[in-house]
């Protein structure tokens, strides 16, 4: 452990990272960090904060521990994932391309602590089997907190006023280019809401940086996922809550309203789905639940929405890196 002033500054920085980054992650994941390092856990964010600060002071929680955990948790889940054909670049040339780019100093940066106002490339991890490039953007805002609302009679005009409370929230969006060399696809993962052209702008920025580095020469080709989602709606490896099948001039929705279960649990819906000639519907979307008891490796059950024509997969919950890849593996196996 570094000692003296340097050590105190390091602990201060770490505590700031806990406040702004660590505590914004899901409770289940924070508990996992505490449990893994045998730190007292607690039940809510206030407990976690107190225990994390104490562990940093005692030196039982260090920067490498937090960074290892953050790299598995932050930016995974609650995101939109687009699949593309992988770059044509030879694996052995990647490092040279990175070194020769404007981002050379970021190579080996596992986690960034920055909250930039605009999305900017902030971390690059190159390993023997994958390349991960991350962009960050501060997205803090105000979160409604009704428990802090109050009413007050104004002394001046005698009227009663109601005040709605908002709590300041620190958050940041992570956008990631992820390429596992063994896969027949690479992915752009975006933690930005899809509003208007927001994703188009993000894609433009990312591709601009990737082309500058030399990962891509031209825009990569999206991999259509409609066939995969069609196949998944006929199988039982996920709980299929709904599917929309699109053709020129219309679409067909099959939706289960069951809280536990999906289309497969309702005979009429199952038979309706079977009655569809898949070949007549070029586009398919679907809502799928990947349950932990069906997919042993998942750290939690994962709700996923697939948009076939857009090659987009939306993960509705925060989860871990391995969870996201397990979901993508299942989808890919159906393409």
């Amino acid at each position, binding site marked *: 452990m570094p000692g003296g002033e340097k050590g105190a500054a390091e602990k201060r920085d770490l505590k700031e990272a806990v406040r702004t980054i660590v505590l914004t992650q899901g409770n289940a994941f924070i508990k996992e960090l505490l449990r893994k390092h045998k730190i007292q856990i607690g039940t809510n964010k206030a407990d976690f904060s107190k225990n994390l600060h104490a562990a940093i002071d005692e030196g039982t929680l260090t920067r490498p521990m937090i960074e290892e955990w953050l790299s598995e948790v932050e930016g995974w889940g609650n995101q939109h994932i687009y699949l593309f054909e992988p770059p044509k670049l030879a694996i052995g040339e990647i490092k040279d391309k990175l070194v020769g780019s404007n981002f050379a100093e970021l190579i080996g940066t596992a986690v960034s602590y920055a909250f930039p106002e605009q999305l900017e490339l902030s971390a690059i991890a190159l390993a023997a089997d994958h390349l991960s490039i991350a962009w960050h953007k501060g997205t803090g805002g105000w979160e*409604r907190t009704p428990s802090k609302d109050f009413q007050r009679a104004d002394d001046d005009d005698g009227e009663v006023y109601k005040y709605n409370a908002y709590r300041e929230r620190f958050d940041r969006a992570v956008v990631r280019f992820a390429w596992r060399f063994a896969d027949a696809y690479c992915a752009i993962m975006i933690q930005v809401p899809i509003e208007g052209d927001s994703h188009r702008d993000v894609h433009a920025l990312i591709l601009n940086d990737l082309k500058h580095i030399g990962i891509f020469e031209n825009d990569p080709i999206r991999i259509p996922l409609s066939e995969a989602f069609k196949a998944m709606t*006929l*199988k039982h490896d996920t709980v299929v809550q709904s599917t929309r099948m699109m053709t020129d001039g219309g679409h067909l929705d099959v939706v289960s309203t069951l*809280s536990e*279960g999906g289309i497969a649990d309702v*005979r009429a819906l199952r038979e*309706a789905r*079977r*009655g569809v000639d898949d070949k007549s519907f070029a586009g398919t979307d679907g809502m799928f639940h990947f349950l932990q008891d069906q997919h042993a490796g998942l750290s939690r059950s994962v709700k996923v929405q697939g948009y076939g024509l857009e090659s987009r997969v939306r993960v*509705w919950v925060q989860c871990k890196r391995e969870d996201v890849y397990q979901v993508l593996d299942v989808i890919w196996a159906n393409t």
Partner: protein
Amino acid sequence: MSEAELRDAFGNELVDALLTQIASGDTPALNPEIFAAALNLDGAKVSDFLEAAAEGGLIERREELHCPRCEELLTEETAARELCPSCKEAFGDHGGVRRRAVYKLKVGKTRDIAWLIAIHGFNTLGPWQQEFSWRMATKLKYSAPVLIYKYGLIRFSVLVRWRHRALARQLGNSLRTAIEHVKANRISEPPDLILHSFGSQLFVQMLALPEFDDLRFGRVIAAGSVIRPDYDWTQRIQQGRVEAVFNHCGGRDWAVPFAQFFIPETGPGARQGFVDPAAINVMDRDYRHSSCFHIAELESNLARGGLWDRFLRGSLAPPAFEGERFHPKSWHPIWRPIRGLVRILGVALIAVIATGALTFVSAVWLKLLACLGWEVIG
């Protein structure tokens, strides 16, 4: 409230409709409005009935929690928070967490018929197969192809083993081609089978051939079966070769008891039933060897709630077929020397009959030729 009390309070129609719904396994949850609409009954009465049925334990009432804004289903834990985890809006700003009653049914897992294969018996070309295919096509509102498998009209060749093996190999090759074809057309499930008489024996012989170990099958209905009653179905199920077996027996099937004497490796499966507890044996006392395939019986067995319909599409977990199935005691084939003797006598008898018939036909033919010859000369 007991079932009898429910009947007194709400009438038989509602109680019977609910019991039918549970037995069908069509859905694990009831929507009171849709249930009322299906019965053309007053919604309030149906709601009261479902509440009473839940109190009596016939169904389970659960309360679901939903976000008032985005309708996201909430757990007790997330509902206790201020904001919806999905839309991030405060529950309180939209009237608070919404509670909704849901009625859960205790149902088994049902399944769909993906596609079927029908195999006929010997000494026939199996005209029932076309009728069966037609009934299935009109019964289901989606496409479940029926492969009508015909191996030709065979009679005396059922007596010899080598011919069985050749036919079983031919069957396996055809089924493999069919399975590959449906897979290419997005049907990934294995086929269900309807087997009649010697067709059932060909099927189990094909299962025994190692070259077809990769072929997997769904639920199997055997009617008029000549498979040995001590056939090890459990092993086949554990191997994943078949999912389940339904043996439709006939009390007046006088053909199958003779099978073991003349057709090698067979037995009276359709009279005795299968001893293996994994098989579902159901006896119809009035059925003869092919009664299952008479149109009225075919319609009745395939109708919603009929024996074959329940076997092919329903849950097989207890209490399925309780009170209908029977478990035969152990079965032993007739002592081999006796079977051998009967077989020799039978074959000899057939040979004598065949020789006699041939002699008779030849004599008639020669006589005809002689008459024609006299006419020409004359």
